């Protein structure tokens, strides 16, 4: 599965001019993207690792069984004037009160929720379920590339583009593994070889030296990563990111997740050629004392919602080009366990946010929570295969041809799309 990277082509030229900096074609590419007024489409993917409890995040407050199954952790039904109850959406579902910052986006029809969404595969292993969701191949561990890699490979590419796919993670996420040279960044400000100033006046320019050391290898993970790093560094230096503070008074929550979302917005506003951004947040594996309107889960949801709301505000009109897709590997048991928590379940809720979303709607078929309606007698059923959601978002947002194999051995059918996107962004 080790096919030849486009970088191979780029570096062949460099072989002959060893020691000279090669022409950075991506700068041209990025410039042209800017000329087009930043019309490039961007997909932001947020993975809630650890299996978020969809039933506390998007509360089915119209379900009697919900309150019967959860004596201590259910979110109370909406109550006017009481901020510690669910935020009503449509008379049956409501946001967890911690998601209140997202209510205006719902109201503005930019945010849709797909409930009872997930994988047809029954695994309750975090690791396997995340793997299957990110490869887009439930039950099949063989594909090495991620689903976002397939999306990007289906997009036309004229020249190298170092910041086309950026993950704000410590390692390349499974979703972006494969032949598209995703760059990982922990912090844009640190993305530089530091301390490289020569000790001696005549010393070696360290950064240049490293760049050359990683210039030549072919078919090798290390060399690829090294070259990506230097390409990306140059592009970031060519743009002045420091100046782009959050716009429109957007306030991101403090912490790693908020920082990563803020920096994704920075990259978008700086027109670096970003197409897919990936970030993640953890702490959803609430086996013990997950809390109700307040508590452990509420804390995580607050951060989550504040970051999404800040992103929307920060990007302003540019949200027309952006779609945010949230996901989690599975949901949690309908019944609370013996410790005021929930164990690994099945279906959960996913959100889609953006200017081209048919928002303000609950999407997908609700399977109910009565005993006989549950998966394995214990979990929320999955009525929307996550692949149909992912496919609709990717296909419609990027305008991909319908025949590309986004999921091997699983031809997606447009009539099974959950219907979160407007058919044409212009209409």
């Amino acid at each position, binding site marked *: 599965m080790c096919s030849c990277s486009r970088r191979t082509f780029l570096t062949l030229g460099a072989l002959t001019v060893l020691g000279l900096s090669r022409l950075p074609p991506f700068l041209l590419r990025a410039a042209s993207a800017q000329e087009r007024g930043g019309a490039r489409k961007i997909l932001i993917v947020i993975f809630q690792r650890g299996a978020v409890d969809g039933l506390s995040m998007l509360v089915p407050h119209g379900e009697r069984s919900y309150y019967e199954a959860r004596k201590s952790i259910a979110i109370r039904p909406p109550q006017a004037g009481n901020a510690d109850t669910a935020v009503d959406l449509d008379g049956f579902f409501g946001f967890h009160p911690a998601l209140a910052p997202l209510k205006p986006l719902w109201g503005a029809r930019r945010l849709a929720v797909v409930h009872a969404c997930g994988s047809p595969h029954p695994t309750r292993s975090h690791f396997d379920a995340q793997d299957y969701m990110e490869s887009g191949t439930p039950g099949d561990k063989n594909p090495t590339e991620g689903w976002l890699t397939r999306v990007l490979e289906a997009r036309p590419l004229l020249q190298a583009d170092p910041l086309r796919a950026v993950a704000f993670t410590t390692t390349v996420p499974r979703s972006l593994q494969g032949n598209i040279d995703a760059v990982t960044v922990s912090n844009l400000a640190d993305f530089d070889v530091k301390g490289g100033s020569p*000790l001696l006046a005549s010393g*070696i320019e*360290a950064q240049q030296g490293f760049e050359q*050391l*990683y210039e030549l290898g072919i078919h090798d993970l290390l060399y690829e990563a090294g070259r990506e790093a230097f390409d990306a560094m140059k592009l970031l230096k060519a743009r002045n990111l420091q100046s782009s503070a959050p716009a429109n008074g957007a306030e991101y929550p403090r*912490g790693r997740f908020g920082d990563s979302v803020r920096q994704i917005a920075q990259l978008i506003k700086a027109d670096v050629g970003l197409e897919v951004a990936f970030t993640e947040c953890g702490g959803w594996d609430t086996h013990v004392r997950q809390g109700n309107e307040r508590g452990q889960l509420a804390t995580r949801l*607050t951060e989550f919602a504040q970051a999404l709301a800040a992103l929307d505000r920060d990007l302003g009109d540019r949200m027309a080009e952006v779609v945010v897709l949230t996901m989690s590997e599975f949901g949690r048991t309908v019944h609370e366990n013996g*410790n005021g928590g929930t164990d690994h379940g099945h279906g959960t809720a996913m959100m889609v946010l953006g200017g081209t979303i048919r928002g303000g709607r609950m999407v997908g078929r609700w399977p109910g929570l009565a005993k006989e309606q549950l998966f394995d007698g214990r979990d929320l059923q999955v009525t929307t295969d996550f692949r149909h959601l992912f496919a609709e978002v990717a296909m419609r947002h990027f305008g991909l041809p319908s025949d590309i194999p986004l999921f091997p051995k699983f031809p997606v059918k447009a009539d099974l799309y959950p219907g979160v996107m407007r058919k044409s962004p212009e209409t």
Partner: protein
Amino acid sequence: MYGMVFFFIVSAFIVGCSNSTGRSVSLSDTHEGALERSKDEPRPEVSTSPLSEHQQILHALNRLGYGPRPGDAARVQQMGLKNWITRQLHPDTIPDEAVAPLLRGYPTIDKSTPDLLKKFPNNPPPKPVEPNMGPMQSQMAQEMPPERRPVRIVQELQAARIARAVMSERQLQEVMVDFWFNHFNVFAHKDLVKWMLPAYERDAIRPHALGHFKDLLLSTARHPAMLFYLDNWLSVGAGPAKIGQNSGLNENYAREVMELHTLGVDGGYTEEDVREVARCFTGWTIDRPREVGQYIFRLGQHDRGEKRVLGSVIPAGGGEADGLRVLDLLAHHPSTARFIATKLTRRFVQDHPSPAVIERAAQTFRETDGDIRATLEAIITSPDFTSVEAYRAKIKTPLEYVISAVRVLGGQVSVSGTASDGAFQLTRTIANLGQPLYEAQPPTGYPDMATAWVNSSALVRRMTFALALVPNRVPGVWVNLPQQLIGVDRRRSDQVLNRLLSVVLSDEVTPATENILVHMLSDPKINHAMEDDQGLVNTDAETLAALVIGSPEFQRR
């Protein structure tokens, strides 16, 4: 106590003859030559390995330990590689007196959990209502003197891990402690885990690192750190009549002990098994976690009914023995042998070990009742271990990269336990590279595959670290580059480069890298005259050394 400063000095004598005469033939050429030779004629004098003796020694130092220090390869050659490996497999036979005094700056690693609970205030954390620390809380946190903050327990353990990795002669033991801790991972910052953490590594992991797997499994299963981390201490059984109805079971440990500790996810257990195993472990709990923090079995919390696990009936009324029976079933299950063999061969051979070497290890594991030492020996003596495919095939983890860099330059690390502690600094570096020790949140621990560690951001940080390490800009860490360059005419850049390639890469350098470095040195801008106490012209050896440490070759082991 904290005021005392201990240093350790990694033996710093220079690698002898191999580099003093310059390198008319690069050893990478020798490497290729050896490969070609092996096709035609076996080389029985060393072993059937296609690797040269020099390469086999380096391979062992890189795989069974944290990389060579100056002189290590020569010492191993002198005592014989086989002898060295045998000693590493029996760490008690290796004198290691120098290490204990070094750890005096980290007194918490020897303390019991109850002592730590007394010494470090463990008021329950304020209710996390807001995502961010309010001004009140952060103020409180700041008012607590650093040495009384509970996080100090984790810092000392991290520093001790680093000190041992750099300094201990029992390198394989340290590697195996790292391996098993990661296999039976717990997360330091899950509430009370950090008070239980020193005891967990010291009492549950370390004594069994080269022992029997079943002992490791039992000691981790019963340890409060594991019971707390995977919530089993809270799992309560109901009377058999009430099973399935809000019984108070918590499945977390039951699932992970099969998926991650023993059988592997495809090891042949069902969802029903998860539930039944959870029932078996009810009552395995912690005595007063905030004061005592010791394992206790509570019959009143235990589900006394009959259970059925992996096809075996566990009769009613077994009490604590239910869990013991489960561990026995798991430890001797063929899937466990295979799963552990896969992880060990991935660690010691390559990311994608061959079915043959996995089976070889699994067979030994089965036949020796899970003897880890014997299983390791089966792996080390396999043709796969010293195959061309395995040689330098592993990408270093952040821990391995940082430690090997310090070791290769004969580095010294201050282990004072004070603010200037170099091991504290290196802890931060390793965290910055993506592997904060004891702080892997998921029960899977850290991955052991190149794809997880090779990425642009981390590589940039590795280069930055190399540039800080060589000129001694990492506080509390000293490398002695001039000592590595004794006998080299620093006015001769080719001599400097040859020595650095020899010291850092043991001459295992690709022609591409060597060419680039040579080319750089011929740049008049780099090589032009300047004065210092060595004379007229001096090569920028510091940056050159950093480049070699940051090179693709040094990312491999």
